[in-house]
C-alpha cells in the first residue's frame, strides 16, 4: 500500500513537472502556429494518445482522421456515431469573457480510458494553451494593425504631397492655404492650378464623411477635375461634368457626394470667376469692408443626376480679401456652442492681419481658443487670397505716368528699386547728384519697408510705384505693415559715439534730408507707404 501511494505521488510529481515544462514551452513563442503545434504535441506525447487537434484550427498532431476533424470542427454538430470508432474527449478553451473560442479535442487509442490525473493534466494544459493562443492572436492582430498603420501613413504622405506645396507667384496677389485632416487622411480637397494663360484655377472641396474612404473619393475627384481644367473647359462645364461623372460612379460615390467651389483668377483683368456647388459660402471683403458672398448656385457634385450651375464673376479691387473654407472651420464646438458661419465672417471682417499666412495662423489660433483645445472633429481647410494694396494715386492737375515694380523683402533687393528709380530720373533730366540722393532715399525706404513693415518675411513684397510728371518724380514704397517705423530724430553722433544711442536708426533722417518732399502714410487695410518726391527745379516750389 505504501509502495503504491509512493508511486502515485511520484507520478503526480512527474505530471506536475510535465505541466510546468508544457507551460514553459507554450509561452516560449508568440507565433500562433508554433503555439498550436507545441500544445498538441505535448498532449499526444505526454499521455501517449493517438492524436489531437483544435476545433477551429486546421493543424493536427498524431493520427486524426480528416472526416473526424471535419465533423468535430467548429460549427459542426456532434459527429455521427459511425465516425466515433475511437473515443474522443473535448476540452473547451474560453476567452476572458467566458466564451468558448475553440476546443481541444483528443483522440484516445481504442479501449483507453484517462484517469483523473490525466484529465486534470489536459484541463490544466487547456488553460495554459488558452493564454498562449490569446497572446499569439493578439500578436497577430498587432502585426496586422501595424501594416494598416503603415498603409495609412503612406496614404497620408501621398495625400500631403498632393496639397500645393508652394503658393504660385501671382503678380499683385498673395495666396495662402492650410489643410489639416481629422484622421490620418481626410476628405478635404484643395488644389491650385496655374494655367499657361496666366490665370490660376483654385478648388476647395469637401467629400461627405471623413477618413480613408473620403480620401479615396477625393483623389479620384482631383484627377478628374485637373484633367478638365487642363482641357480648357469653363468652370460651369467642369462643374456640370463633375456632377455627372461623380453620380455615375455608383451608389457608394453618391453617398460620398462632394461640395466644392471652383475659382478662376485672372490677375491681369483682376477678375475672379466662381462656381459654388453646394459648398459653404466664401467671403470676399473689399477694402471698405463691403462683403460679397460666393454662394452655392447648384447642388453638390454627385448628389443628383442633374444640376445646373451659374458662374459668379467679381472684380477684384486693391486690398480685397477672399476666404474660402470647408465646414470643418465652422463646425468647431465649445461644449454645445458651434463657432458657426456668422462668427467666422465677423472674425474675418475684424481681422487686421496683413498676409494670407498670418490670417490663417490667426484663424487656427482663434478656433483653438474657442474650442478650448477640444480634439478636432472634422477635416479643416481654408484658403485666403489677397489682392495687394496699391495706394491710389493722388489726383493731380498734370498728367502722370506710372511704373510699378515689386521686390521681395530680402535685404539687397532694394538695389533693383534704386536702379529703376535712377534710370527714370536720368531719363527726366535729373543731374547725377540728385540721382544719387534719390537712390539712397529709395534704398532706405525699401529697407525700412522690408525690416519694419514686412518683418523680413520674404514672401511679402515691397511695392515701388514711380510716377513721373513734367518736373517731378514721385516714388511710393509700399509694405504690408500697419504703420511707419517709429520716427527718429536727427542722429546725434556724440551720443552714438558714447553708446548712448543706437548706431543705427538713420534711414528716415537720410530720406528726409535727401528728397524735396516726404510723407509717411499708414493704413491698416491697404498697407503703409512712404511717398517721396524730387523736383527738377526745387527752388520753384
Amino acid at each position, binding site marked *: 500500500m505504501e509502495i503504491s501511494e509512493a508511486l502515485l505521488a511520484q507520478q503526480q510529481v512527474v505530471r506536475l513537472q510535465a505541466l510546468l515544462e508544457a507551460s514553459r514551452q507554450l509561452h516560449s513563442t508568440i507565433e500562433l502556429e508554433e503555439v498550436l503545434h507545441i500544445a498538441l504535441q505535448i498532449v499526444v506525447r505526454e499521455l501517449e494518445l493517438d492524436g489531437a487537434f483544435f476545433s477551429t484550427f486546421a493543424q493536427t498532431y498524431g493520427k486524426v482522421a480528416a472526416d473526424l476533424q471535419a465533423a468535430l470542427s467548429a460549427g459542426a454538430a456532434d459527429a455521427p456515431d459511425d465516425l466515433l470508432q475511437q473515443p474522443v474527449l473535448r476540452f473547451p478553451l474560453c476567452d476572458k469573457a467566458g466564451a468558448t473560442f475553440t476546443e481541444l479535442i483528443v483522440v484516445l487509442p481504442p479501449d483507453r480510458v484517462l484517469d483523473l490525473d490525466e484529465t486534470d493534466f489536459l484541463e490544466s494544459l487547456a488553460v495554459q494553451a488558452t493564454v498562449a493562443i490569446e497572446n499569439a492572436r493578439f500578436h497577430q492582430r498587432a502585426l496586422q494593425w501595424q501594416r494598416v498603420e503603415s498603409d495609412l501613413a503612406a496614404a497620408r504622405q501621398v495625400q500631403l504631397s498632393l496639397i500645393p506645396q508652394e503658393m504660385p507667384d501671382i503678380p499683385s496677389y498673395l495666396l495662402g492655404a492650410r489643410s489639416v485632416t481629422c484622421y490620418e487622411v481626410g476628405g478635404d480637397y484643395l488644389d491650385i492650378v496655374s494655367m499657361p494663360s496666366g490665370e490660376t484655377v483654385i478648388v476647395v472641396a469637401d467629400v461627405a464623411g471623413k477618413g480613408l474612404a473620403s480620401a479615396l473619393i477625393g483623389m479620384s475627384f482631383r484627377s478628374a477635375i485637373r484633367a478638365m481644367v487642363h482641357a480648357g473647359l469653363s468652370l460651369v462645364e467642369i462643374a456640370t461634368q463633375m456632377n455627372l461623372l461623380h453620380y455615375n460612379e455608383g451608389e457608394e460615390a453618391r453617398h460620398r457626394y462632394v461640395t466644392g467651389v471652383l475659382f478662376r483668377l485672372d490677375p491681369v483683368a483682376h477678375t475672379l470667376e466662381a462656381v459654388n456647388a453646394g459648398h459653404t459660402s466664401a467671403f470676399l471683403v473689399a477694402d471698405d469692408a463691403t462683403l460679397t458672398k460666393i454662394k452655392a448656385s447648384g447642388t453638390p457634385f454627385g448628389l443628383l443626376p442633374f444640376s445646373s450651375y451659374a458662374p459668379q464673376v467679381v472684380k477684384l479691387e486693391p486690398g480685397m480679401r477672399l476666404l474660402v473654407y470647408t465646414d470643418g472651420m465652422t463646425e468647431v464646438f465649445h461644449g454645445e456652442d458651434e463657432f458657426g458661419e456668422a462668427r467666422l465672417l465677423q472674425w474675418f471682417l475684424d481681422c487686421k492681419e496683413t498676409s494670407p499666412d498670418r490670417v490663417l495662423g490667426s484663424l487656427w489660433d482663434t478656433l483653438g481658443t474657442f474650442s478650448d483645445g477640444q480634439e478636432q472633429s472634422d477635416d479643416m481647410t481654408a484658403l485666403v487670397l489677397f489682392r495687394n494694396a496699391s495706394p491710389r494715386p493722388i489726383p493731380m492737375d498734370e498728367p502722370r505716368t506710372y511704373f510699378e515694380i515689386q521686390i521681395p523683402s530680402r535685404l539687397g533687393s532694394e*538695389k533693383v528699386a534704386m536702379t529703376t528709380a535712377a534710370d527714370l530720373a536720368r531719363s527726366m533730366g535729373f543731374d547725377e547728384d540728385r540721382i544719387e540722393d534719390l537712390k539712397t532715399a529709395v534704398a532706405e525706404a525699401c529697407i525700412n519697408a522690408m525690416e519694419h513693415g514686412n518683418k523680413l518675411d520674404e514672401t511679402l513684397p515691397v511695392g515701388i510705384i514711380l510716377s513721373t510728371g513734367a518736373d517731378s518724380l514721385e516714388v511710393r514704397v509700399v509694405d504690408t505693415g500697419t504703420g511707419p517705423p517709429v520716427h527718429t530724430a536727427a542722429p546725434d553722433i556724440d551720443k552714438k559715439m558714447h*553708446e548712448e544711442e543706437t548706431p543705427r536708426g538713420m534711414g528716415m533722417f537720410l530720406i528726409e534730408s535727401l528728397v524735396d518732399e516726404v510723407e509717411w502714410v499708414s493704413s491698416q487695410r491697404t498697407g503703409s507707404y512712404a511717398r517721396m518726391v524730387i523736383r527738377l527745379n526745387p527752388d520753384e516750389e
Partner: protein
Amino acid sequence: MSEKVTQVKTEAVQSNSGASITVLRYAGDITSASKAAVLGTFQGLPEDTKRVLLDFSGVDYLNSSGIALVIQLMIAASKRGQSVQTFGLKPHFIKVFTMVGITKYTKLHPDEQSARAAFSA
C-alpha cells in the same frame, strides 16, 4: 541684382614720418551683411595698432546699416586709443557722412596721400 559681398584687404604702410599705419581697403557693398568684414577685420588687428586708415575707394554702395558699422568701428577704435582717418568715399557718400556727423570723429580725405599725412600732423 544681388548684394555685392564686402571685400576687405589689410595692408601695412608708413606715414611720411615713418610711423606705421594699418590700411583697411574695402570694396563692394557695405550693408548690414558686412559686419564680419568691417567689424570682424578691425577687431582682428593687433592690440598695439595705433593708426587705422579706412580706404573706401572700392565701395559702390553704402547704406545706413553700413554707416552704423563704420560708427561701431570708430567707437571700438576710440576705446583702444587708435586714430582713424578716412579717404576714397565717393562725393555722395561724403555728403551722407557729413549729414550724419561722422566728420566730427574722422576726417574724410580726398586721397590716400593726404590721409597718411594727417597721421603725422
